[in-house]
């Protein structure tokens, strides 16, 4: 076996690291996390031959310390990064969307004064952006419309990124709510962990802070739902059953966030239970029952 064999192993380069004054554990951790080679070799023997370890047993002791340290550090980094990156993405998407719509209004108003066939909205801006402007003012109005189109494209690209990245952060929540709503809930709570720690009654009205405030100051009835209103289970349930639907959904979303935070594995039963519960609620519409009110509410589960 040649020197280059051992050089490809995670334990190689230790002398150089020591010479550079790096902490041996840190250095080993980085090599476990970032190293690469195509073919595995008999690392235990090579490590003993290279003087890295006294014996195979000693090698395995060191390997274990290095893998545990590396994995712990990477887990911590990635967990922190993932939900925070998702929050940045979803907030950027919301801002792009809102700004695109606002700017589209401005662009449409301006274009309407210059061209007779200008239409409102993003689609209107797209048509204006495709025009050949004449003169400075038209040039500016067409250019403004082009910015609207770019911003709308950025919004769509951000949505795609969220679709791709959210499942790794919160698989169960995404399966239940879809990537965008899941990301919005995480953003409203400030992270997956804070979301996982909220009682389901709070999750139910997340995003309805204004309405909740009005209610608390005695100016309005208590809100039945916040952002979860956008979920099909709430929106497409008849109005008298929406409270039940929102409660059932919020209860399961809360549990999904907890499973995602504490275990990270998919839990099939959670999704089945919600489907069954929603089928029961929606069946009321067929039998003509009204909303059930009372102390023992079957939908109030998940409250901490």
């Amino acid at each position, binding site marked *: 076996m040649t020197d280059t064999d051992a050089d490809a192993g995670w334990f190689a380069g230790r002398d150089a690291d020591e010479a550079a004054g790096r902490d041996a554990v840190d250095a080993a951790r980085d090599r476990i996390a970032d190293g690469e*080679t195509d073919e595995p070799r008999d690392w235990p023997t090579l490590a003993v031959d290279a003087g890295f370890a006294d014996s195979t047993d000693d090698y395995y002791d060191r390997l274990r310390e290095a893998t545990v340290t590396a994995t712990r550090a990477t887990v911590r980094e990635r967990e922190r990064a993932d939900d925070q990156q998702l929050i940045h993405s979803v907030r950027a998407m919301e801002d792009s969307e809102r700004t695109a719509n606002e700017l589209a209004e401005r662009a449409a108003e301006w274009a309407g004064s210059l061209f007779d066939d200008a239409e409102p909205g993003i689609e209107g801006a797209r048509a204006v952006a495709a025009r050949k402007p004449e003169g400075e003012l038209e040039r500016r109005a067409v250019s403004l419309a082009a910015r609207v189109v770019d911003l709308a494209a950025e919004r769509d690209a951000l949505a795609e990124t969220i679709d791709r990245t959210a499942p790794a952060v919160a698989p169960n929540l995404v399966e239940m709510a879809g990537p965008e709503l899941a990301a919005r809930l995480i953003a409203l709570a400030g992270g997956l962990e804070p979301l996982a720690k909220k009682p389901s009654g709070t999750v139910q009205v997340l995003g309805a802070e204004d309405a909740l405030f009005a209610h608390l100051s005695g100016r309005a009835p208590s809100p039945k739902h916040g952002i979860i209103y956008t979920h099909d289970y709430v929106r497409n349930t008849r109005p008298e059953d929406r409270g039940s639907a929102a409660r059932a959904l919020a209860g399961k979303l809360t549990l999904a966030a907890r499973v995602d935070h504490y275990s990270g*594995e998919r839990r099939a039963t959670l999704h089945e239970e919600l489907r069954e519960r929603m089928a029961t609620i929606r069946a009321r519409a067929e039998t003509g029952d009204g909303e059930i009110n009372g102390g023992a509410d079957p939908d109030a589960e998940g409250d901490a």
Partner: protein
Amino acid sequence: MSDPDLPAGVERREIAGETRLATRGDPVYGEPTADGWRAWDPERSKLGGMLELGFDTGLTGGETVLYLGAASGTTVSHVADFAGPTYAVEFAPRPARDLLDAAEPRDRLFPLLKDARKPETYAHVVEADIDAVVQDVATRGQATVAARNARFLAEDGRLLLAVKARSEDATADPDEVFETALDELRETYEVLETSRLDRYHEDHLGVVATPR
């Protein structure tokens, strides 16, 4: 009480009034224990199911194992209890955190936060000539993952694979999904045994194979 078909270190023991597959070690997922033995629940573990169903796994105890898709360590902790050096690859950070807890009392269990589709990112850590690769990744491209990891196996080593049909195609007929996966697998492996795990895991196929 040892069973000739089971690897040394895996036994059928009387635990909480039932005869159950068990290994010796610290409990990990709230499984019942008796006299230092912990029940190995075949409903929560594809490999546990394969052992219960009498697959010829080739496992004897004390071997070197590469485990792909370790999740929170339910199965790989049992493996580390009876096997030798056990490399556990998992790519999702959250289950990996629990895997670290399972590794705590097991000094030959090496947790690695890596993507099993990219063996080059851990070939500098995982040794060559591994005796058994156990794979339970439950994501699309399960046969591809197995093929890419063949490089770690000894010539007479074993691949112990669980294929989950729904991970490949949630709408297709599982039998067709399994056939496609096996066809791809046969490019790198000789398939020795296959059987459905349905008694414990619906729409899963258990496979024993050896490198070609």
